[in-house]
């Protein structure tokens, strides 16, 4: 039986997906490819240790895919949190995907699924209210974090064009937030006071991990379907999110905030480079209509429910988890934004 290879199993989404796949298809149907072994609680999972950044990675991947009879690859080895070591991130995300796509094409893999981010559209004042999949990613972004992901998508598509046997799905997930998520967003949400830009309050989309997992499973079942946005049912504004979390907000005028954030990041204190301020300034809300149409994916949680689920996980002593349960009665109302 052909197997499914999963990279980035040490990441949050990759790890959750590995568990789900093992539970549904059995340990023998899945192959974990990562530099770190999967958790010992998952017994019998086949694991191949491989560093995507090494020069010979593509050759080793071809061998590996042939040996293990892999026909589907889910590539989840991406950084959610920006790294100071941008050259390593570039090697892993952009070049690593290049290796992976080349190997997948050479080994006759049918379906390559890429984990991506709605943030690759870039946050701009000129964005339409709903970004659709035909909008190109912001490859000229000032953030290396965004450029690497845009390049990775481009590599996957260029191999798909050259080798028609290789189908590609790029899942652009909205910002993940929920139980178990650890990223720089959750670190910001764990502080007592958060700096915001004075006079800006953009809409955010916060995706519950359960929804993200569901969409990933549907995409694997569906087959190649190009770019698909995976977004929650409704968005909420940044300040609403921060105030629901009882944070103190410190408004900073934006002409001052950018240099300050750059300094903060440069000195090693800040959580993210200054380019991320754009994401607290302008909206980058993506449209989930294609996921519904092609994958049949219906998000269960709103952004607010994802936030509340996270808060209940992060502050179990003060937050009631009951509020975070999705209400089936609500389905059907207000899912325009999803």
């Amino acid at each position, binding site marked *: 039986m052909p197997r499914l290879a999963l990279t980035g199993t040490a990441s949050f989404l990759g790890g959750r997906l590995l568990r789900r796949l093992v539970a549904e298809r059995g340990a023998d149907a899945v192959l974990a490819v990562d530099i770190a072994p999967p958790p010992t609680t998952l017994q019998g999972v086949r694991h191949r240790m491989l560093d995507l950044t090494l020069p010979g990675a593509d050759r080793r991947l071809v061998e590996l895919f042939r040996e293990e009879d892999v026909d589907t690859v889910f590539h989840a080895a991406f950084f959610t949190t920006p790294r100071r070591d941008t050259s390593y991130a570039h090697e892993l995300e952009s070049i690593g995907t290049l290796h992976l796509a080349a190997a997948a094409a050479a080994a006759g893999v049918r379906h390559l699924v890429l984990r991506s981010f709605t943030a690759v559209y870039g946050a701009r*004042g000129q964005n339409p*209210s*709903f970004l659709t999949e035909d909008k190109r990613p912001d490859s000229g972004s000032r953030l290396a974090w965004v450029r690497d992901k845009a390049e990775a998508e481009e590599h996957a598509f260029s191999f798909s064009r050259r080798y028609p046997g290789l189908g590609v799905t790029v899942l652009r997930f909205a910002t993940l937030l929920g139980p178990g998520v650890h990223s720089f967003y959750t670190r910001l949400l764990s502080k007592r006071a958060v700096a915001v830009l004075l006079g*800006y309050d953009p809409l955010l989309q916060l995706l519950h991990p359960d929804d993200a997992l569901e969409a990933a499973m549907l995409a694997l079942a569906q087959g190649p379907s190009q770019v698909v946005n995976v977004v929650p049912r*409704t968005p909420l504004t940044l300040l609403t999110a921060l105030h629901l979390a*009882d944070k103190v907000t410190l408004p900073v005028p934006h002409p001052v905030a950018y240099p300050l954030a750059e300094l903060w990041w440069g000195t090693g204190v800040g959580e993210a480079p200054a380019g991320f301020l754009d994401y607290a300034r302008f909206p980058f809300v993506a449209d989930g209509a294609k996921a519904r149409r092609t994958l049949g994916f219906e998000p269960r949680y709103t952004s*607010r429910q994802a936030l509340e689920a996270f808060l209940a996980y992060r502050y179990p002593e003060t937050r009631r988890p009951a509020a975070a349960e999705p209400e089936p009665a609500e389905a059907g109302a*207000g899912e325009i934004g999803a």
Partner: protein
Amino acid sequence: MSDTAKVVPIGRGRRPARRPRVKTEPGVLERRVDELERELRAERQAKRGDSLLVALARAVSSGAGALDWASLGRLQRALYFAWHSEETDAYGADARFGEALEPFFEFLYAMWWRVEATGTENVPARGAGLVVANHSGVLPYDGLMLQLAIKHEHPARRLCRMLALDMFALLPVLAPLLSKSGSVRASPENAERLLREGELLGVFPEGVKGIGKRYRERYKLARFGRGGFVRVALRTGTPIVPCAIVGAEEIHPVVGKADWLGRPFGLPYFPLTPTFPWLGPLGLLPLPTKWSIDFGEPIDLREHGPEGAEDPILVNRIAESVRETIQKMVDGRLARRRSVWFG
């Protein structure tokens, strides 16, 4: 009422096929709806005021010594949710925000500019509609007033979503203010999406050329963009409602421009008026002119079909004819106007 209730037969298990209906005068229902709405609003306001007061009182009674991050956070939360709701719609429109600012805008509408709206019956009560108006007045007050005119003087009380210029979507304070009051950024994607959802849209095709024009060019409509609004209307088969706004040109008479001053702040223009920037923030006070907002007969474009959108000559011709219609409406109003301040 009591004499109709007397003769209901019991037994048989069947209701009389027709119940005698109480005839009401036309105004009664509307008045009742108004009353109920006012009550609801007062109730909500009382509740909101309460929670805010409680939060403030708690902060005061605990004293400055006991002030910590958590209580500060709770206080900020109460302050924020006093005028924002916890959920917005998919485009970011916030019902409570609109309600909270309404007294201020209503003051501007009824007392400051004494807006006189005519022809509101031309705005469709149901389904998609595209209100096209002339733009003026440096700051987008005309859009907010147009929104209020439709909300208050149209029987369906519809929310008219304005398509905001790019520059307003970039500016601090103004960007969230516009998006929370129901505006979206002016782009063909947004417009088409909203019209297909059957929303009422308002658009100022003159764009920056209209809003920042000099005083001596007042009430001369600038070129209507590249006809994008016509293309969207053709594609979706939406009627265009021409609208003339008179009075907004004089609220901030632009006597000169110093665009080089605005450039570092990302402003596309920097107007010099008799009061701004000489009087500082006081110069931002708009002059109390008398406004009128006239809605003209809707223009039905369905005869051209959606494929008409691909014909640039047709699109330009329609855009030009809409511009002329609005120019005529403006000129007619100006000819009848005797005073800038009293109409």
